[in-house]
């Protein structure tokens, strides 16, 4: 005889899970939704009390202004009345070039991370050599050093080399905050791969480099994607070093321009939020699309770290 299971506890469990999931979703998304909503409001609407959670008259005027001035299609109107409806602050034209700078820096840092990180991680994971543990400890130690402790020496050296206000200074110093982590994640990934692959290929006469390129690299694609994403996001989001080294739009990255807008009292609130949205969209898209790679990469880096 089949005894029907009591539905009570299971139902409550389902309700509890649904409530908790909704609560978490609201916690994570509400601040971002408010940022997005604010970026789509007119200047008149955004100063309404109580706030309009969903804009009555959504407008893309801020984004149109950013792209029109950024692409040189329209000059930034100088000093119009900030309370006016169509006011475009003069910094609007700096956002797209800054985005370009951020992109160049981030891509360069990703490439260098892979070029430096892959061979080093392979050596640490697969070759027994004297000083291997020293290399590991050195990598771990760099992660304990606060980035702000590197700012003073970096600034003096960069200034002496005449590299202030250049993208090169950002690319090189960002290696300090990205390479150790990349090596760590890659090394823990390589370590999980069987050593037999290595031996078999070398019996066939492959050099270490050939083994790495032909055997491990094709298998390591998920780790390469994860490490590339981490380096890209870290560079795209970095603020402190860029604040020290950049001075003009020749090298200013997106966070610098956005921070300037945040503290500029003449910029309208809706434009401020539009600038925020512009900085948020690329990294968030990358993170959501490549969620699986990121989670497995973070896990690999953490379990070892």
């Amino acid at each position, binding site marked *: 005889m089949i005894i029907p299971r009591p539905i009570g506890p299971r139902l409550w469990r389902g309700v509890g899970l649904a409530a908790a999931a909704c609560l*978490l979703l609201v916690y994570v998304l509400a601040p971002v939704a408010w940022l997005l909503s604010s970026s789509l409001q007119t200047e008149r609407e955004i100063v309404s009390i109580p706030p309009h959670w969903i804009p009555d008259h959504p407008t893309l005027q801020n984004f149109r202004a950013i792209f029109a001035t950024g692409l040189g299609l329209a000059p930034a109107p100088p000093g119009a009345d900030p309370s006016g409806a169509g006011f475009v602050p003069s910094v609007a034209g700096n956002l797209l070039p800054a985005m370009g700078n951020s992109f160049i820096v981030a891509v360069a840092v990703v490439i260098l991370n892979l070029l430096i990180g892959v061979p080093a991680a392979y050596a640490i994971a697969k070759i027994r050599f004297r000083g291997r543990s020293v290399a590991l400890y050195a990598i771990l130690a760099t992660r304990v050093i606060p980035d702000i402790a590197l700012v003073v020496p970096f600034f003096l050296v960069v200034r002496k080399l005449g590299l202030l206000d250049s993208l090169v200074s950002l690319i090189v110093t960002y290696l300090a905050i990205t390479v150790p982590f990349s090596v760590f994640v890659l090394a823990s990934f390589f370590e999980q791969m069987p050593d037999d692959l290595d031996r078999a290929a070398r019996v066939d006469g492959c050099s270490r480099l050939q083994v790495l390129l032909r055997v491990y690299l094709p298998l390591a694609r998920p780790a390469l994607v994860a490490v590339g994403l981490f380096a890209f*996001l870290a560079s795209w989001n970095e603020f402190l070093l860029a604040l020290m080294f950049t001075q003009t739009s020749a090298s200013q990255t997106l966070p610098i321009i956005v921070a300037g807008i945040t503290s500029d009292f003449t910029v309208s609130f809706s434009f401020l939020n539009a600038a925020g949205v512009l900085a948020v969209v690329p990294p968030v898209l990358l993170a959501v699309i490549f969620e699986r790679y*990121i989670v497995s990469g973070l896990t690999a880096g953490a379990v070892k770290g």
Partner: protein
Amino acid sequence: MALRVLTHDERAASGLLAGLVAVLMAVTAFPILYSLWISLFAVNLRRPNRMPFVGLDNYANVLASPQFWESVGRTAIFSAMSVGAVLLVATLVAVLLDQDFPGRRVLSACLLIPWAIPSVANGLMWKWIYDSNYGALNGLLLQLGFISSAMIWLGDADRTLGLIANAFIWKEVPLAAILLLVTLKSIPADLYGAAAVDGAPAWHRFVHVTFPALRPGFLLVALYEAMMAVRHFDLFFLLTEGGPGGASDVVAWRIYVETFRNLSFGTGAAMSYILAIATLLMSYALIRSMARQL
């Protein structure tokens, strides 16, 4: 000098490691040593030609300054609030994501959004939420009737640190939850089985099985978040610039002010060094104290 002959493998390893060694030397080891050197001089960019050697005077001055110790206190409060709240919220999130329910994958993808957002955009977003005139926080609380008139959030010295910590926590919870979830997944199922046979209620299972098993995860997350909180700069720059009246003047902000506003590079370097050493000691002490409980 007797150089040991490198084995074939070691020659290969040194070639493969050359790039890493060069990077670590150039952008980590050298700056750290150079910083130590600078901290022994009275370097002020307002007087670029006079750089007298002062030995440990910069350190003595920093350690004797009440202003510095006040900023240390604020850093400790900010970090304690942040680490505690991140651990609590992340544990709840991890336990939730450990269950099987429809939409779990969408939820965990959304969870990465705060992690991915640039800290500058995070600062902008929360500054606007806390805005005393048109911000969402006042708007929401007024509409719900929790407050009767608009509050000045960040401008209130008693609330500033907590509000900045809230923005920090929001961004840090996802990573912490992911790390704790890994630990949860590694708990052997038969541990739960044994508890179920005993007829233990769910909360009992959590306290006696899940919680102890999570300890290594707690250690990792607490250590990492404490390191991040103690050095955090971006939100302080964006939200309050150390204000109001020094209420959010933490060590990282102090280093910035000494270095780039007062242009005393020697003092800034000495403070950075103290912060770096404190971070090292803290991570060591934290590992030790938590390892003893394991």
